[in-house]
């Protein structure tokens, strides 16, 4: 192994496909579907009114299959990804995406299944959702999960809509959702979308929310709190039970942003923390690929009293159960809409099924034997980085004393002393062959550098990364820092220009 993975190589340039075309070329075979030649030749105006017919077809590139394949293969080579580099993006849980899950999602009949196929014929597919729901309930201690939310933010929105509807039905007009200032941007955005007013609470010195501070915000206008746990500093909210008590006493709900659930997977249940609702980002904790920005799934779990509010449709299990009666029929799975107080529909069909499928496969792979090791190793790896980097970046760990959970965060204090800014550190790391950590978030840490190693990285990789940070801290010249990265397909991108004169398409 070289000293660092980022050495040198060849980057193949590639023009936009539209410039590579040649009239009449295409990369797809067109079947005749058994149609007569005379039908194939007929003009569209023999079928529909000519006034609707498009005169000039869309200007798509005119290219062959090999050209398309080479084009996109070259493009792909300009990406860093989990399979090529250490990708320690904080709050994003960039863990390994098992290959077997891709093979399962690519099974011919599953991937070609029409969502409105009669339920009687697709019982095994519906059973997947029910079985997966049972596993998530066991892992969280909650009563039921709804799978309609397509991503984390959609799960937040669904959860907040539930809270809203709960109070509407009670005839209470509570408008406030409390959000710690360290929360993900989606939290206040989802609150607004659900019709609430988000109110920020300052986090304490230890990085956590203070029960005493919270008390100051409590009133009958407070519908709930959105709390990320462990929070975006990677710190466990020590007062969580007390916070939940305060909220519950006020008749309010505790919504947990489950983006960081990897810290608890198989080790602790959120029900033991007094959580009422949580979304689980299956594309984070449950290993489904991020896909360069999506798709995901933000399955929403709730306590017993909120089950009837979950989105519809959902998979309902009818019959079966644990009966000694031999005559009892096998359970039947239905696509049901009978949730008395459902917040309604969020998606045209049931859920991001292919994502749920991968997550289910992941849990079946791990099984009860290994699942607790996920959070254990994730926490160990993060604390190792915290400890080692804490020495190199002295004075930069705002929470030096305690242990972190699945991620750790540093300020730019130490690197600034060496004349390197956070963004420069990020870009310099690229040339060493690492994806940068999350930077400048959370906002309340100066020049924040947020590192989440996950359980699928080795100590060897972590050591290599730590060594790179050390080299940057002690050896980098400012002149080099401002020019980095230099080994990438393009250098520092001019984002000012991009926004000043926006170009949205060819």
């Amino acid at each position, binding site marked *: 192994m070289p000293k660092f993975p980022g050495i040198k190589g060849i980057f193949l340039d590639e023009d936009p496909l539209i410039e590579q075309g040649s009239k009449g070329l295409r990369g797809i075979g067109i079947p005749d579907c058994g149609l007569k030649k005379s039908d194939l030749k007929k003009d569209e105006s023999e079928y529909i009114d000519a006034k609707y017919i498009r005169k000039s077809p869309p200007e798509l590139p005119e290219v062959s299959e090999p050209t398309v394949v080479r084009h996109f293969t070259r493009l792909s080579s300009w990406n860093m990804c989990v399979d090529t580099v250490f990708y320690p993006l904080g709050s994003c849980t960039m863990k390994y995406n*098992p290959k077997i899950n891709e093979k399962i999602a690519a099974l*011919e009949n599953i991937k070609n299944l029409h969502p409105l196929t009669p339920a009687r014929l697709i019982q095994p597919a519906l059973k997947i959702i029910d079985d997966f729901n049972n*596993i998530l309930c066991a892992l969280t201690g909650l009563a039921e999960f709804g799978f309609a939310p397509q991503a984390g933010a959609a799960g937040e929105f669904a959860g907040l809509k539930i809270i809203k509807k709960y109070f509407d039905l009670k005839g209470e007009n509570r408008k406030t959702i409390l959000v710690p200032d360290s929360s993900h941007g989606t939290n206040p955005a989802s609150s607004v979308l659900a019709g609430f007013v988000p109110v920020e609470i300052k986090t304490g010195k230890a990085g956590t929310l203070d029960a005493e501070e919270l008390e100051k915000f409590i009133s009958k206008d407070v519908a709930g709190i959105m709390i990320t746990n462990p929070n975006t500093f990677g710190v466990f909210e020590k007062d969580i039970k007390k916070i939940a008590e305060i909220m519950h006493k006020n008749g309010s709900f505790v919504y947990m942003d489950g983006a960081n659930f990897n810290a608890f997977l198989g080790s602790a249940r959120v029900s033991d923390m007094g959580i009422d609702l949580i979304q689980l980002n299956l594309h984070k904790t449950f290993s489904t690929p991020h896909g*360069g920005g999506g798709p995901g799934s933000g399955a929403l779990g709730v306590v017993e009293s909120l089950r009837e509010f979950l989105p519809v449709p959902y998979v309902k299990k009818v019959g079966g159960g644990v009966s000694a009666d031999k005559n009892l029929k096998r359970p039947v799975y239905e696509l049901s809409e009978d949730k008395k107080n459902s917040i309604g*529909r969020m998606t045209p069909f049931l859920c991001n099924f292919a994502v749920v499928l991968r997550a289910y496969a992941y849990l079946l792979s791990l099984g009860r034997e290994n699942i607790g090791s996920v959070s254990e190793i994730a926490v160990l790896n993060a604390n190792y980085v915290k400890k080692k980097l804490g020495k190199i970046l002295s004075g930069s760990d705002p929470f030096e004393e305690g242990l972190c959970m699945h991620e750790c965060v540093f300020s730019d204090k130490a690197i600034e002393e060496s004349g390197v800014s956070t963004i420069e550190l990020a870009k310099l790391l690229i040339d060493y062959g690492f994806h940068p950590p999350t930077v400048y978030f959370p906002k309340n840490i100066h020049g924040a550098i947020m590192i989440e190693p996950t359980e699928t990285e080795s100590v060897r990789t972590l050591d290599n990364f730590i060594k790179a940070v050390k080299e940057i801290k002690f050896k980098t010249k400012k002149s080099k820092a401002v020019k980095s990265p230099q080994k990438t397909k393009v250098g520092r991108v001019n984002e000012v220009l991009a926004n000043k004169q926006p170009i949205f*398409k060819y």
Partner: protein
Amino acid sequence: MNNFRYFPNSKRDIAKLYRILGIKDKKELFGKILGGIPLMDGGILKALPEELGEEALYRFFLDIDSNIPAKSRTAVFAGGGIYNHFVPSAIDGLISRSEFYTPYTPYQPEVSQGTLFALFEFQSFIAEILGMDVVNASMYDGAESLAEAVLAAMRLSSANRDMPVSHKDDIILISGGVNPSYVSVIKTFAGGTGVKIGKVKLDGRTGRTDIEDLKQKLATGGGRVPAVVVQQPNYFGVIEDLEALERPVHSNSNSGYNPGFIVSSTEPYSFGVINPPGYYNADIFAGEGNSFGNYMNFGGPLLGLFAAKKEYVRQMPGRIVGKTKDGKGRDAYAFILSTREQHIRRGAATSNICTNSSLNAVRAAIYLSLCSKSGFKEIASLNLKLAHILRDRLLSSGLFEPLYDGDFFNEFSLKLKINGNKNNNTTASEFIEKMAERDIIAGVAVSESALLISATENNRLSDIEKYAENAKEVLNA
């Protein structure tokens, strides 16, 4: 602690980590962090299944796969918002590259040019197909995208009103031809704002949105109208006369405000044959793009498309890729206008969306490249013809009658004819159930007696024959 195959730290490595941290074991580690929160014990974990080895896991899912309708022998004629189009192997080959499917959102543009460039091409191709100025880098699905379009139109309509904005006096007019699931999602999203939802009825004969009803509701609908929503082709497969619909929308002076003209679609493949929404001066397009290179996947993940006129770009939700330069003047791509988004603007963002359908969008970009200019048009034309042949064949059997007679693309609605049906109380759902037993997914029931039927390039003439013959047996049995 087992050496499970996804964990690259050996037992020794883990022991080393504990030693360095000065902690004995997991109990102490989590005890120190969690305080009074208990560690999950064997009793709780017992509710979870035992681990499955890779081969056993694959067989488990193979078994599931073989107990649902088989692609190899099932003829799918169901649409209703998702369509059974052919997916070329080159897409699967390219998308299986880790460089596409395992990165995060491209927030570090220098190491994400591949995804960014591919999304820029996606935006370019979709803009061409829709005839719209600006396309974003995807939403979750057509329904969510449409709901966000309605919210965007509401924001635009309130731009010149005194704050705080109330939508209590507003009414969104939605055509009865919009997919009912989409209308439900709009209600979920817009419900909290106080806005009312009004329905514009369909012409009973043609199945097109009733222009007179629209005009009347624009005039006296009981409030200011931030947006009028139509679907092209509509839920029943009928091609809307967008030209005739657009005129009253954009000249509605009754409330001193011209509503946004929002066009949706669940089948943008139609725009290979018919005029696109941009041609009719649509302000926003929001619909489904799954037809372009994506599998049906039992309904998700899908591909939300969102496009708008340039002047509305600041109210658009979601990420947008823009073309720019790097320090050396080389072409480069990056996310632009991020100040609209939640990670910058938090509560004041245009939407809460973060994760979207990026990979599905890249699939669409690859698909449309493969189709090329001529292929896209020809496949669209093939869809049109197959659907018309199917409809003619079914009507000639005497078992069905048209629900509407308006022009259509690749989907249409028929009623089961009572007289031609010996078993004359068969409902549309029962018909579909019985046909499914014969490996034909015959359509989607839209009422007690009517169903939606679609045809794509994945259906052959022989499938159409099979449909007609089996329908005869099922309905005359």
